[in-house]
């Protein structure tokens, strides 16, 4: 009896209300009424909860209660339907509580100029959730911007992270970057971070900040829980800004903006290979803008440098497509800079050397990779490793009609793919036709001279592999200019002869034949360009030859299939590392043995079905040859 399970309306309240209505109530009547009122209220509350449950809500609303009243033939209570909480006031004298009910000035309301906006339209939006291995207990998906409101925790996180990254403490920055890279709950913050990063343009004078922002990009890109979606475009444009723009910071020659450009270029390639599939046509857009910068003589050399490293980072195909055709035109300008020994030109000349070094590194890899890819395709076709990695790669190499796939290893395919898009992509590409490797070498040799040749003689792995490829080119394609240029190359590069003995199969290649008269344009062009340099190279080859012989036994042909993957992955680092620190002419040494990369080849398995089918048809086309 003493315990009160429910709120109760006391008999005093009932009597007061009766008095308010002008009725005098006896004590017993009031008590009975009070009890009955309580019971009816409870009953109505219970039935109103049913309306709440069916409305799939947790909160009982006034409307629910009114419905319950209406269904029990009781008049609904009006005036309490507002969504906001009603202020409940107490009067000090006497225990009286009441809901505050302010007067509303209707005239003012009606004549108000600020017309309230209606609610946003009800709509349906989709997001996808998936399970990871352990069962996903975290909320997923981004809350659409329409209703986006960051929770306090997220906001705090955002502030802490940005402060740490852009602040002074390098240790704090490292921690922040690491968290940014691994945090799975920051999807909602992505737009904010992207916005911060897009601020590169406003801090172009501050190399340090730029660097930090680039690191931030890297962390975001590497975070496996983030779906970058269309934000990739924004990130790429920020990165491109760092690669290509003259940057206020570069006015001071003491500022090492070169490293920033290198890093940004590396980042660009990383974004592209991992997230390039999110935005269609990204590859072309990047390539076009790089080309534009490169072909613009008004731009400062550091921009050109950026374009070159950018192309280099995008892979040898990009170099072949954009840099190589531009080289003759560009060379003249560069040559002029380099040949100017005046004091006033010293700074520019130093920059020119940087560009020179960058181009050299780029073309070096171009030659190596091209040679490698040719040897791969040859092996793939010869069926030496039918199910191996080589096979898969070479299939992709051969497959036309393939849009740039996201796999890092499909580098090789891209050139051909973009070639196919020539029609649609724009006039810039139309004049481009693949130049056979020997012709390319000759042309490049005409620019770089021995500094190019030197780099080939000392590479650990490639010195042995690349030379044998031209013969396979002849094997597989049998293009008329092939043998002709082959001969030229073999004469220039003595390594070839040394390695030809490795595989007896290649001995029957037409390379041993006397050069037939060249039939096609490219062939003759390459020959003419190479003929002038023949004398010089002959002299060089004698010096180089012994070095090559030392390195050749290190290679193990059976491991070849793994080597390709490893090479390409490793190659990027290998190319960049000496490049980043200084542009010495010392040959690039593969610091990391290629085999350590061999396990990083998951991409091979991701070859889509349509690709296979294409390769098959393409392959069959090639068979009769």
């Amino acid at each position, binding site marked *: 009896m003493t315990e009160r399970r429910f709120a109760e309306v006391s008999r005093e309240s009932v009597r007061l209300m009766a008095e308010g209505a002008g009725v005098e109530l006896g004590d017993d009547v009031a008590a009975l009424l009070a009890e009955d009122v309580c019971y009816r209220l409870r009953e109505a509350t219970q039935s109103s909860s049913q309306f709440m449950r069916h*409305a799939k809500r947790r909160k009982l609303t006034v409307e629910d209660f009114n419905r319950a009243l209406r269904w029990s033939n009781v008049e609904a209570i009006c005036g309490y339907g507002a969504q906001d909480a009603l202020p409940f006031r107490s009067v000090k004298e006497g225990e009286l509580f009441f809901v505050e009910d302010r007067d509303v000035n209707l005239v003012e309301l009606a004549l108000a100029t600020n017309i309230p906006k209606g609610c946003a339209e009800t709509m349906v939006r989709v997001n996808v959730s998936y399970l990871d291995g352990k069962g996903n207990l975290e909320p997923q998906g981004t809350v659409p911007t*329409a209703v986006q409101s960051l929770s306090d925790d997220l906001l705090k996180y955002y502030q802490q992270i940005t402060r740490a990254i852009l602040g002074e403490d390098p240790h704090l920055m490292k921690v922040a970057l690491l968290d940014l890279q691994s945090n799975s709950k920051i999807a909602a913050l992505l737009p904010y971070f992207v916005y911060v990063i897009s601020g590169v343009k406003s801090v172009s004078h501050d190399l340090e900040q730029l660097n930090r922002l680039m690191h931030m990009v890297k962390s975001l890109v590497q975070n496996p829980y983030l779906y970058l979606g269309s934000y990739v475009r924004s990130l790429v444009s920020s990165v491109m800004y760092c690669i290509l723009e003259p940057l206020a910071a570069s006015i001071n020659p003491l500022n090492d903006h070169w490293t920033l450009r290198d890093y940004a270029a590396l980042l660009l390639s990383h974004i592209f290979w991992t997230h390039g599939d999110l935005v269609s046509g990204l590859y072309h857009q990047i390539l076009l803008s790089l080309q534009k910068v490169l072909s613009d003589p008004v731009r400062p050399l550091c921009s050109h440098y950026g374009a070159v490293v950018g192309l280099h980072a995008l892979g040898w195909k990009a170099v072949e497509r954009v840099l190589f055709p531009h080289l003759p035109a560009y060379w003249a300008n560069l040559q002029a800079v380099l040949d100017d020994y005046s004091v006033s030109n010293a700074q520019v000349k130093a920059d020119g050397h940087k560009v020179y070094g960058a181009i050299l590194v780029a073309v070096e890899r171009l030659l190596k990779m091209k040679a490698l890819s040719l040897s791969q395709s040859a092996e793939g076709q010869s069926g030496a490793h039918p199910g191996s990695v080589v096979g898969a790669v070479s299939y992709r190499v051969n497959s036309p009609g393939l849009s740039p796939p996201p796999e890092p290893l499909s580098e090789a395919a891209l050139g051909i793919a973009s070639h196919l898009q020539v029609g649609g992509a724009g006039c810039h590409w139309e004049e481009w036709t693949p130049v056979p490797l020997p012709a390319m070498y000759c042309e490049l040799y005409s620019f770089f001279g021995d500094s190019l040749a030197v780099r080939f003689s000392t590479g650990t792995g490639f010195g042995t592999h690349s030379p044998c490829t031209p013969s396979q080119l002849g094997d597989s394609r049998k293009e008329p200019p092939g043998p002709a240029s082959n001969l030229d190359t073999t004469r220039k590069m003595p390594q070839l002869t040394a390695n030809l003995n490795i595989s007896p199969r290649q001995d029957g290649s037409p390379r041993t034949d006397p050069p037939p008269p060249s039939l096609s344009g490219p062939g003759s062009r390459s020959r003419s360009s190479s003929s002038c340099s023949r004398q010089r190279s002959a002299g060089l080859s004698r010096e180089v030859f012994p070095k090559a012989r030392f390195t050749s036994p290190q290679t193990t042909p059976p491991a070849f299939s793994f080597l390709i993957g490893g090479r390409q992955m490793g190659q990027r680092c290998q190319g960049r590392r000496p490049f980043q620190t200084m542009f010495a002419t010392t040959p690039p040494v593969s610091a990391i043995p290629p085999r350590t990369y061999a396990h990083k080849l998951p991409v091979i398995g991701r070859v889509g079905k349509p690709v296979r089918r294409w390769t098959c048809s393409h392959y069959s086309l090639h068979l009769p040859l």
Partner: protein
Amino acid sequence: MAAVQGGMGDADIKTDIKTEPSADGFGNNNANDGRVLSASPGSSSSTGSNKQTAAVTPEDQQTLLAVLQFLKKNKLSESVEILRREAGLPENSLDPKANESAGAGSGGAAGIVDLEGGDASSLLSRVTGSSSAGAQAPTKAAVAEDQPDVSVVLSAYSQQGDPTLYKVYYRDLKKFIETVLDCHRAELSQVFYPLFVHMYLELVYNNHESEAKAFFEKFSGDQECYYEEDLRILSGLTKKEHMRGNETLLDFRTSKFVLRISRDSYQLLKRHLQERQNNQIWNIIQEHLYIDIFDGMPRSKSQIDAMSGSLAGEAKREANKTKVYYGLLKEPEIELPLDDEDEEAENEEGKPKKKKPKKDSVGSKSKKQDPNAPSQNRIPLPELKDSDKLDKIMYMKEATKRIRLGPDNLPSVCFYTFLNAYQGLTAVDLTDDSSLIAGGFADSTVRVWSVTPKKLRKVKSAADLNLIDKESDDVLERIMDEKTASESKIMYGHSGPVYGISFSPDRNYLLSSSEDGTVRLWSLLTFTCLVAYKGHNYPVWDTQFSPYGYYFVSGGHDRVARLWATDHYQPLRIFSGHLADITCTRFHPNSNYVATGSSDRTIRLWDVLSGNCVRIFTGHKGPIHSLAFSPNGKFLASGATDGRVLLWDIGHGLMVGELKGHTDTIYSLRFSRDGEILASGSMDNTVRLWDAMKAFDDLETDDFTAATGHIHLQDNSQELLLGTYTTKSTPVIHLHFTRRNLLLAAGAFNP
């Protein structure tokens, strides 16, 4: 069958057994007997339900007698004559015995409107399910007024002992039960709750208010925690006047609380009560309890707990003995030729396919008649239209691309979030092909969105339709008004929150049920309302189309579910028997059965043909808010406010699994297309996936279990839980598997 035994309780138990079936079939009889599924859709005119009109069973007769008795009492002699003539009863059939059963029968019809008419104090008092028993036109009016007087119902409480002794009696029984052997204690403890409630109500009825309060306070703590909700309602009831019009009380009073007790335990109890001369309790047991006695081992506490919790105790074993044809109907064979054509078309596109042999095998499989399936025309079903056939072909094609789900191959979830749904999203449905999504809102609107790039278009106006070339091949395209194309359409018509929504299988219609007591049929070609089905006079909580279209079921606050046909403005069947609101309704995949979940915490399965209740499933501890049939029709899953999913074997009428994990009401359940995975969506903002294959495979289906209905549930929820998807403050109120087994979920963002 409850065993009859010697001793003092025998006679009473016998009468129980005898009268119970009639009470059980009560509501259905007036509405369904002598009626066929009057509408045979399309041109298929052969109704398989003719035999219904014949053979009035003894129970029916008793009910009729009860009705006659009532009519006579109210001096409606004309109606008496008509009814007697129609039913073919002899003049002298109104004997006292019939009178007796009238009390039970009409009391069960779950209606209490004061004879004085319109007592405002009877909150949410309901009409009986018989108000629209249209076919029996002459008697209809009379039957509709067949409302039992509450005083009749309650009069059973008038017998009273010394109010001060109630406590003693109860305590005495409690002491006894606590001292019996462990194996019996659990079983006998079941008696506590109904006994407690009835004793309390007796005290209240006889105006012993303070004794009642004291009694309640002393013993309410002993009751099982899952009765908490009912106890709270009970505790508010302290006056005889309040008993009038209190639903909970009436539910309790009008239906006997069913207990299952082993023979040994029962005898123990009986002996004790006899020894003590404890007539008060014994009377209550006789009057208000139905004890279902079985031979064999007493059940354990966990076994009892698994099955109890409903408003009226467990289901009688008899209630679940009827044969249920749970198999699937044979698919029509029109697919094959058309499909071949289609494949040829694909071949022309240059896609070599070797699917033909596989297709054939699929076809032959469906040709085999499932032994558990009902006959093809048990329920007349609409004939397939050409568009339906095309859709079937689409379905087959999609099905070949379906991903086989399993523990190692879980589906991704596509979540449709309703944004800016400030008005309150109350119901969602998706078409089978996942092309349209519809939402019912608390502001009475129904909104339809297209979730494919195809926009929603209306049909042109009549004037414009006259202008188009009706002979052209693309006439179906030409009738659409391109100007009206939009991503979503809003449909106005209801005057209360829309609680249930369902697309027709052919995507031409949409059903919505609302608080305003109507079910509306909307055309998705014109986006207008076609029909408002009025029958439920109270909020309609749920509605669903039959998987074959044409029929639909609705259930609501008036405690009856109704079966409708779209072209009839009155219901074809009225399923009455639930003791509280029907909260959700589902059609069996073969369209021959309807499952309803209710606030009385039971699930009932109704035969569409006869209108009878063929299964009662008890075990939930809260109102049931979601139901799902497995695609093979064998199993039923149910989810309730208690956050548990229970799995039921329809054929055996057994509970076969319990899935614990959710922390709030489960508003949606769905099996994957092949039935391997059960997805449950809840108010706790999660979607959980359960290994349905394993849950059903691990069944122990030995004869004993099947015969006694005693299940041993292993607590393997954690093993069966395959995954949990968490949303961002979005309660999951609908789930749907696409034809390729991608899981779609929907809910409104709730900041």
